[in-house]
């Protein structure tokens, strides 16, 4: 079909044709009803006012009939409104800004590697990854990793968790004016570091939360766990009326530091950095006025049933017995696959009918007519104004940009987050959202698509709608540096 193959080089007439097609399909009902409405009005005008009045009287409306019909209407309306899911609002969120003394410039990284590691090949490999990583000079690592030599202990892990969580929670409480006693639901996700008592218990202890709090701690769920926590919080908010939920997403780097020589396990050292986010959700109707976003959809895709996907990000022990996270070479392919499955599910929920029809036709065509037809990638720019793609690494962002056919500006938030904060695991999406807001791009009615990918292999999406235009400047992690962004990130840094 002509409009599919001309995607890459639209001429004016094709564009016009496409616009007409879109309008026709997206406003089908209007397109059908408009002529009918016009003809009714014309008929009514032709009949004249006396004829219309006679027609009205001939209908013989009985007061009892009228009353029962209106009761029925009210009853149906009530049932409808009560059975709708509760609206979940995102009131505000805070991202962690690590102190400047945790900054890790490239030269310090190289120097520490030279002083601590014996294996030159390992040092060279890590520096090569770093040069191509897309990270800047301001990313931060926790103090235990800065030591020469690093000797991370359990206490260091706790200290890092406390620093990140408490600073972020304090920031959230200040921004929202929330009192700790008003927190009804608490969900914390942190993948590798899972102490007992849990991090959620640590928060309950520090902030003296209520004894009947519904607290959850999600461990081991990887980099996409923030949206899993949001999903859990949403479900809990459906079950509990008039409640506040706080979601805390972070990753603790200290116990993750890999001191061995396996290449597949060294990559996380180069990419993961300190970061965290705390989000306040609510289903209270009075919060509607001050909420920033409302949650429209959460779509979760799990490819763990496939062995290749299950094994592509694994915590293992290397031949020397040192524990680390191993990334397989299939990672990009698996991520692309998971994304496609997620798109297939989320597409019908968010895409306008015009894109859905095209996608359906392409799907049917590839299945039944000719498998060699190029798959139609729906134009998600029709559905969303902003995109927050997990800043897992430069390759991940490149792959997603290609798969979704996005422009450079649409992945700018992801790339700049990777540059300024590094891969902060599950909290990346919140830094990216904060970037978009700090740039003054978030307007009322804008829809945001957050995509998280992580071990499992999972691809999770959340769709938010902006409730009010967000004015700059914003008091958040980007405040001191947003004026310097966006920056140009070279393909390979000259170290």
């Amino acid at each position, binding site marked *: 079909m002509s409009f599919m193959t001309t995607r890459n080089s639209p001429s004016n007439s094709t564009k016009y044709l496409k616009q007409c097609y879109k309008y026709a399909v997206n406003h089908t009902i209007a397109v059908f009803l408009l002529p009918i409405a016009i003809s009714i009005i014309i008929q009514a005008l032709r009949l004249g006012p006396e004829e219309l009045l006679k027609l009205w009287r001939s209908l013989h409306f009985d007061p009892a009939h009228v009353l029962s019909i209106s009761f029925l209407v009210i009853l149906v309306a009530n049932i409808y409104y009560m059975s709708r899911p509760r609206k979940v609002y995102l009131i505000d969120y805070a991202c962690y800004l690590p102190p400047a*003394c945790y900054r890790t*410039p490239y*030269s*310090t990284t190289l120097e520490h590697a030279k002083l601590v590691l014996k294996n030159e090949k390992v040092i060279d490999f890590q520096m090569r990854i770093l040069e191509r990583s897309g990270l800047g*000079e*301001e990313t931060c690592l926790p103090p235990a990793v800065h*030591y*020469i030599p690093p000797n991370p202990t359990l206490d260091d892990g706790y200290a890092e968790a406390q620093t990140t969580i408490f600073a972020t929670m304090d920031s959230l409480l200040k921004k929202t004016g929330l009192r700790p006693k008003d927190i009804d639901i608490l969900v914390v996700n942190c993948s590798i570091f899972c102490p007992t008592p849990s991090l959620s218990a640590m928060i309950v202890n520090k902030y003296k939360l209520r004894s009947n709090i519904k607290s959850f701690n999600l461990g081991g769920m990887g980099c996409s766990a923030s949206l899993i926590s949001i999903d859990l919080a949403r479900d809990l908010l459906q079950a509990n009326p008039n409640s506040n939920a706080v979601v805390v997403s972070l990753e603790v780097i200290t116990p993750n530091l890999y001191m061995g020589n396996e290449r597949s396990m060294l990559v996380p050292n180069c990419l993961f950095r300190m970061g965290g986010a705390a989000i306040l959700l609510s289903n209270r109707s009075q919060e509607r006025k001050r909420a920033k976003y409302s949650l429209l959809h959460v779509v979760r895709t799990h490819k763990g049933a496939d062995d290749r996907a299950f094994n592509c990000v694994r915590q293992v022990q290397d031949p020397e017995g040192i524990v680390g996270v191993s990334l397989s070479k299939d990672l990009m392919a698996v991520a692309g696959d998971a994304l496609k499955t997620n798109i297939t599910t989320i597409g019908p929920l968010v895409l306008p009918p015009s894109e859905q029809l095209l996608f359906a036709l392409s799907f049917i065509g590839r299945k039944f007519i000719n498998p060699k037809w190029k798959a139609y990638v729906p134009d998600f720019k029709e559905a969303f104004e902003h995109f927050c793609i997990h800043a897992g690494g430069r390759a991940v962002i490149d792959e997603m940009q290609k798969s979704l056919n996005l422009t450079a500006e649409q992945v700018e938030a992801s790339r700049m987050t990777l540059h300024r904060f590094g891969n902060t695991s599950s909290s990346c999406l919140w830094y990216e959202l904060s970037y978009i807001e700090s740039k003054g791009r978030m307007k009322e009615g804008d829809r945001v698509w957050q995509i998280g990918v992580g071990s499992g292999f999972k691809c999770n999406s959340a769709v938010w709608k902006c409730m009010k235009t967000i004015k700059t400047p914003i008091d958040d992690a980007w405040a001191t540096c947003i004026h310097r962004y966006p920056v140009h990130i070279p393909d390979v840094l000259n170290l």
Partner: protein
Amino acid sequence: MGEVAYISKSTAVSSKTVQLGKLYSLSVLDRLMENHHIRMVYYFRSSAGMVAGDLIRKLKESITEMLVCYPVVTGRLVRNDEGKWMVKSNDAGVRISEARAKGSVESWLQKVDREKELLLVYWESMLHKPYFWSTFYVQLTIFEEGGLAVGLSCSHLLSDPISASTFIRAWAEIALNGNILLPPFFHPLPPRRLPINRAQEKPNTHFINGYKSIIEGLNPVQAHNVKTLTLLFTDQIAQSCMGLAQPNTNMGPSPSPFQALAGLFWVCISRVRGERNGLMGLSICEDARKLIGLDKGFFGNCMVYNKVDGAGVEPNSISQAATAVGEAMVRMNYEGIMGLIEWLESSNGQSPPPSMDGDDLICINLEDSDLYSAPFDECLEPLHVSCYVEPVVGRGKVLVLPSPLGEGPMGRVVMVTLPEDEVVKLCEDDLIKRIFSPIILMRA
């Protein structure tokens, strides 16, 4: 007696990225000092409510802010095409380590000696790969029963003791107030103000001759087993020493405490060594910043060695010795120093001497440096500052430092580093023990 346990070593970086790749060249005065390093220890008493963890965190956060002004310190040494050292600004940072010591800072100060004091300020000599070697090293030692010691060691290539003290002062100011009153500046030594009119003025070759003999001289004998003695000359004692140095007040302006103390120690140490032919050789080392038009913010080496003419000075006469020192100090003028700098620049290609100590007793004048006015935090009270210019080869070193606040404007702390047997004899010397009897702060 307290032991020092090292907890951790890491790197403190600046809070902002500095201009990466910028190269700073070192001056001729810098390059001569390649084989020396400086070690300073600042002691503080802490108030009862101070939490060690909070204080360490505050110090680490404030050094991060302060290092933004010191790209030369956070950079690394590289050699240029001619094989001379330069500093490349690469943001690598400064080594910082943490330690714990037993006891309180007061009990430590009562029983410390040179060996123990140097445990509070770690120094590692240049690595095989200098590009990964930090030129500055900071150590924070918390005393378990109260008190803090901040140790700074640095390569003499980049800084003299004056600049090292302004580095610590800047850090303390940022920690206390959030800003630096006198930010450092890094640029080459200024060229001569006016062209030389060689026909008219007699060139001052005094400095050139002194430096020539050090650079071209034989390698000095390494002094084995040196010990350091620290003496506090209170305001009263210092004044009586100055009185002795100039018994006849009609002879001119009264000597500075440094002049009197230099004279005193010159006489005493010569006596202790058993010098028979008059006094031993003496060189004084003074700050030349003001003379060549630089203020204290100039970061680098700007202290000049000045040989004192001891001919005709009676071995036991402090007044004559002090007068000779005074004459040498007067001889330090703009012309002499500029001549020295120009001579050093013209005799390019010389490698630095193994030591600038030469064959003389070295007396370093740091009495004007500001060591006690900025205490990092309101809960800290400065107690004492020690300074070492290492290594000590040759005849020995005497450093004249200001005294802690409350000891009066003329009070001075003198640190004498000599071979072990000579230090012991010095303590027994009549002038030191009986006539002046300064307070012994640190036994040898």
